[in-house]
């Protein structure tokens, strides 16, 4: 179902203004888009990170919905505990209203330190949606490299120096959506806040499943990526249009490309907007890195397209679709 932009502002917002994120921060946008896409009330579990420290500075809070923060690496675990409590208290008739559980975490809390807790929560089958606000580095601590930091990018722990051309790594980045899809969960997707309708539709779809789901959303960070605060959404859009951040989903076993640009824009159009890639344009070696990134992106796009073809018509019949056999 498509969401109407004219209707959304009429809804109760899950967060108020007055939080303390940087100018141009995409995270409040992502959180509003995600929670507004839920038909039922949402309870949030959040990892330590930018939005956590900015949204709930004692004695103030920006959250209009129930919100819980515990630590950096355990957003998935705490949310799985909240969901278990919901199940237990439903059984005893102590809660009756439907609730959707959404965990929010950054890429550090998802790809790296929270990876194990995320994997565990996903395979156990909790009815929860995990959303990674993917700004591709540890922004809250000061722009350090994470497992999501792409090849060639500058961070404060993969500097550009005389012998190091920014981030050196095995691949373009860790393919978190494929890893989550490999848990055979009902729904995993990649989204961008620039394509808000696509993202909200993904959230809506994820929440229809009686099981775990995962979405990673590109979250361009003006401070960390080095671009003007006014450019957040347009840079997110360029990431999609250049093929840097393809929009796709793995829906109940079926891979779908959810937005296909008619023609991909040159990757340089995206890279040039950000200071984190500026060094690549200044040397022959840097230009070679850009070519390498292009090859890796091409490989990934082919991979996604191939998976879409290969899984056409697939339906895993997992959560919500198949009943347990009667063991009595």
């Amino acid at each position, binding site marked *: 179902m498509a969401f109407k932009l004219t209707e959304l502002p009429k809804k109760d917002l899950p967060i108020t203004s007055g939080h303390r994120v940087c100018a141009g921060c995409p995270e409040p946008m992502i959180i509003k888009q995600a929670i507004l896409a839920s038909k039922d009330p949402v309870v949030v579990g959040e990892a330590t990170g930018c939005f956590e420290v900015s949204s709930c500075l004692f004695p103030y809070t920006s959250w209009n919905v129930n919100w819980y923060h515990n630590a950096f690496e355990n957003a998935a675990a705490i949310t799985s505990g909240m969901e278990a*409590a919901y199940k237990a208290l439903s059984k005893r008739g102590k809660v009756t209203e439907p609730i959707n559980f959404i965990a929010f975490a950054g890429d550090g809390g998802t790809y790296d330190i929270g990876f194990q807790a995320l994997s565990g929560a996903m395979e156990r089958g909790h009815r929860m949606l995990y959303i990674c606000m993917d700004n591709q580095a540890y922004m809250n601590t000061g722009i350090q490299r994470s497992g999501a930091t792409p090849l060639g990018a500058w961070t404060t722990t993969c500097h550009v120096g005389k012998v190091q051309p920014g981030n050196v790594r095995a691949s373009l980045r860790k393919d978190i959506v494929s890893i989550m899809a490999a848990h055979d969960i009902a729904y995993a997707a990649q989204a961008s806040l620039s394509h808000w309708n696509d993202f909200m539709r993904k959230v809506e779809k994820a929440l229809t499943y009686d099981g775990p789901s995962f979405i990673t959303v590109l979250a361009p960070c003006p401070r960390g990526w080095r671009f003007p605060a006014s450019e957040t959404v347009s840079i997110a859009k360029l990431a999609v249009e250049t093929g840097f951040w393809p929009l796709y989903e793995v829906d109940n076993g079926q891979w779908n490309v959810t937005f296909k640009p008619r023609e991909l824009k040159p990757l340089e159009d995206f890279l040039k907007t950000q200071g984190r890639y500026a060094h690549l344009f200044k040397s022959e070696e840097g230009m070679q890195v850009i070519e390498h990134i292009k090859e890796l992106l091409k490989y990934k796009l082919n991979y996604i397209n191939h998976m879409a073809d290969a899984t056409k018509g697939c339906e895993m019949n997992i959560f919500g679709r198949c009943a347990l056999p009667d063991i009595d």
Partner: protein
Amino acid sequence: MARKNVGLTGDYAVAEAMRQIDPDVVAVYPITPQTLIVEKFGEFVADGIVHTEFVPVESEHSALSACCGSVAAGARTMTCTSSQGLALMHEILYIAAGNRHPIVMIDVNRALSAPINIHGDHSDTMGSRDAGWIHLYCFNGQEAYDSTIIATRIAENSKVYLPVIVGLDAFNISHNTERIELLDDNEVKDFVGEFNPPYSLLDLKYPVSVGAYCLPDYYIEARKNLQETIQNAKKVIVEIHEEYNKKFGRNIPAIMETYKMEDAEYAILAMSSITGVAMLAADELRSKGIKVGVIRLRLFRPFPAEELYGAISNLKGLAVVERADAYGGASAPIFSELSGACANKKKMPLMANYIIGLGGRDVKIKDMTNIFENLMVNVDKGEIKDLRQYIGVKG
């Protein structure tokens, strides 16, 4: 149903208590020698005997994290662990206490690596002693059973509302079969009552934000509040023990048990199962006319400074016998605590610290009589030369 006497290991006795409490959520990760609890309780879950949502997580870190989420969502929540598992939970222990989450955790006290060792000592919980949890240590399987029930009431008491660790010794208690008197299921149900949390993440009418970021303008107030709360919890801990003892004809000390201390000149202070050995040693020396006694400390957090001082102030000598050490520290944890607690007291016995039974090394009556004798010799000389001694070490 009525009360019944059964032969159970300490772990199974705890599992029976958990069955009777029927918590809403149990999130656990298996670790020897806690596994018998998890396995037995898992059977109750599989057979639908309990209503519990059982969350078999992928690590102890996630076990306690899931417990935090669960209890914040208004569910009665329990977990159990041991040794490395408790160490892996370390970060979240502080958060559970700081966020005031009344989780009950059974810890089967086991040695910490390295070298790796699965047997009993207190290094695990002593390593987590300052996290803000209430600590209760058990004498035997019966007390482990009773403590699990008592701890639920303590944790959830509105004046306390803090997490509680119940410690029972690895193998000596966890795996030894004893005669255990189980209460009637309804007696336990009535005693623990309903869990009535002051807020819940599932209460949509009154949204809450839990786990706020505190800058220097509030952090120290939050921590002082935690200190005052746990110190004040002692009164409630005593009251709940009294209520339990009276209702069920038990005699479980809330704070400590004293054995032949009335006229004692020398005493051993220890915790958990090894105090039984110390009591046998005291009997042996008493038969020779030597006035010795034993203090079994049950409540380690909040530390009962006044009560302990009252018990030791008339002694000539006190041996603090511990199954843990503080490496590089002046003395082992209980000795240090007690010294600090009595810092400004004028009338004090000479005190010596003995480390014993690390990594499950058997503690014999002879070891305890040796400690008494060593203490008496030193007191006679008027000086404790070796403040910390390891007992029963080869070579």
